[in-house]
């Protein structure tokens, strides 16, 4: 069956990226956060060794990329070193709010230079007030300050814009801004707010069913999920509707269950909402 997983990835039946939720706590409390993350919430953290083991098993199963997300991953001690270990196994994207890169944390990022890893930083608008309304005071300024420092260090930066709606002139301003910061057009991702987690509590975002979401195997401290949009949190409870299994080691267990769930799904159904 594990051969079937590798074949499914090779054939595009299963997406190649495995996501890892490093932790759920965050120094921010964004209005649309899927995981209801904030300072002081349950950390639901994976250890560094556990994350590396997921990457090792993902590679053995035939997956071809890793994504690390949270919460804010860089709140976990030694995250730069952990990401370097993961990136030595498979190409990696790490999602971060980009607000913690100073002092020792910034210096530690030197470990990522020259490795196959990108840091994907959230920035939702070219207008600081609009951005900061959703993401918190001073967020825009902190992100704008951080990106050039990362680029200078030889770290690839991607920019993720999560929006309910974006007017053409706002998009143009945002694109001009990311180019100015050294982020290439292909590294700018615009995606909708998804109506889960805190966004659901605030009645915002697009409703997404399983078939709207790419079946990207996602590992958390609570189990394995259909997509990184699966292990969302509402009222302190991790949602279970997109849960695949509680077992995550060996990774073959959820990978095979995910493949079974994916087989027979009409092709292309996960692209209509541009959720990524």
């Amino acid at each position, binding site marked *: 069956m594990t051969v079937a997983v590798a074949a499914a990835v090779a054939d595009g039946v299963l997406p190649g990226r495995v996501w890892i939720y490093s932790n759920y706590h965050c120094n921010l409390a964004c209005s649309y956060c899927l995981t209801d993350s904030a300072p002081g919430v349950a950390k639901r953290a994976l250890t560094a060794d556990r994350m590396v083991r997921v990457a090792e098993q993902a590679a053995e199963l035939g997956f071809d990329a890793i994504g690390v997300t949270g919460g804010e991953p860089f709140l976990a001690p030694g995250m730069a070193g952990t990401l370097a270990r993961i990136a030595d196994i498979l190409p990696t994207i790490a999602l971060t709010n980009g607000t913690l890169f100073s002092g020792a944390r910034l210096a530690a990022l030197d470990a990522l230079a020259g490795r196959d890893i990108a840091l994907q930083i959230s920035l939702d608008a070219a207008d600081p007030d609009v951005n900061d309304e959703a993401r918190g005071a001073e967020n825009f300024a902190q992100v704008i300050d951080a990106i050039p420092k990362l680029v200078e260090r030889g770290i690839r930066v991607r920019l993720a814009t999560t929006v309910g709606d974006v007017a053409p002139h706002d998009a143009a301003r945002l694109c001009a801004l990311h180019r100015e910061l050294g982020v290439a057009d292909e590294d700018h991702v615009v995606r909708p707010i998804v109506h889960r987690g805190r966004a659901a509590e605030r009645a915002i975002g697009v409703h997404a069913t399983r078939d709207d979401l790419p079946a990207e195997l996602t590992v958390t401290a609570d189990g394995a999920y259909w997509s990184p949009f699966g292990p969302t949190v509402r009222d302190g409870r991790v949602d279970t509707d997109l*849960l695949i*299994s*509680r077992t995550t080691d060996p990774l073959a267990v959820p990978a095979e269950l995910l493949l079974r769930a994916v087989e027979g799904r009409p092709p292309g159904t996960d692209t209509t909402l541009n959720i990524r």
Partner: protein
Amino acid sequence: MSRVELLGADDAPLVARRYYDEGDPGPIVAALAQVPEMLDSTLAFIGAVLGPSSIDGRTKELVILRTSAVSLCRYCVDSHSVVALDTGVVHDEVAALRNVEAAWTATFADPREAALLGWVDAVAGGRGPVSDESSARFKAEFADHEVVELTLLIAATLMLNRFCTALDLPTATAVLDRLRRERLA
């Protein structure tokens, strides 16, 4: 009130959803759905052992109900009292099987069923080795393959008994209503 969250249809994990297609799947499935990778294998096992097989339904329900009574599983006793009635076990027999304080011998005079219930009481109610006397009576009435299957049925029921009791799974309202009507509540 269950000791764990029983997942409803909206929260049912992907691989559990088919068990909700025809409505409320009951608390055992709703609890197992918390660990969805265990569902298929567990329910397949339970279905194979407790469901239709070469041994008739009445015999199996005698075993399930008596085992549940001996292990004091409120959920299983209530649920399988109804199943037993629907399988043709009569009211007085159900009442006798449920009652662990009084002997069932007056109600179950048939030697085969008496040997079976003696085996159930010895296996489900005892600890350590089962007596040669119980075994001899049981084996005098049942072939080896029946001994194996019925003993497996006792063991599987005990597993469910402890699962349902430990998690304090709630008895369905319809079951309680039926038991009241049958004067078994």
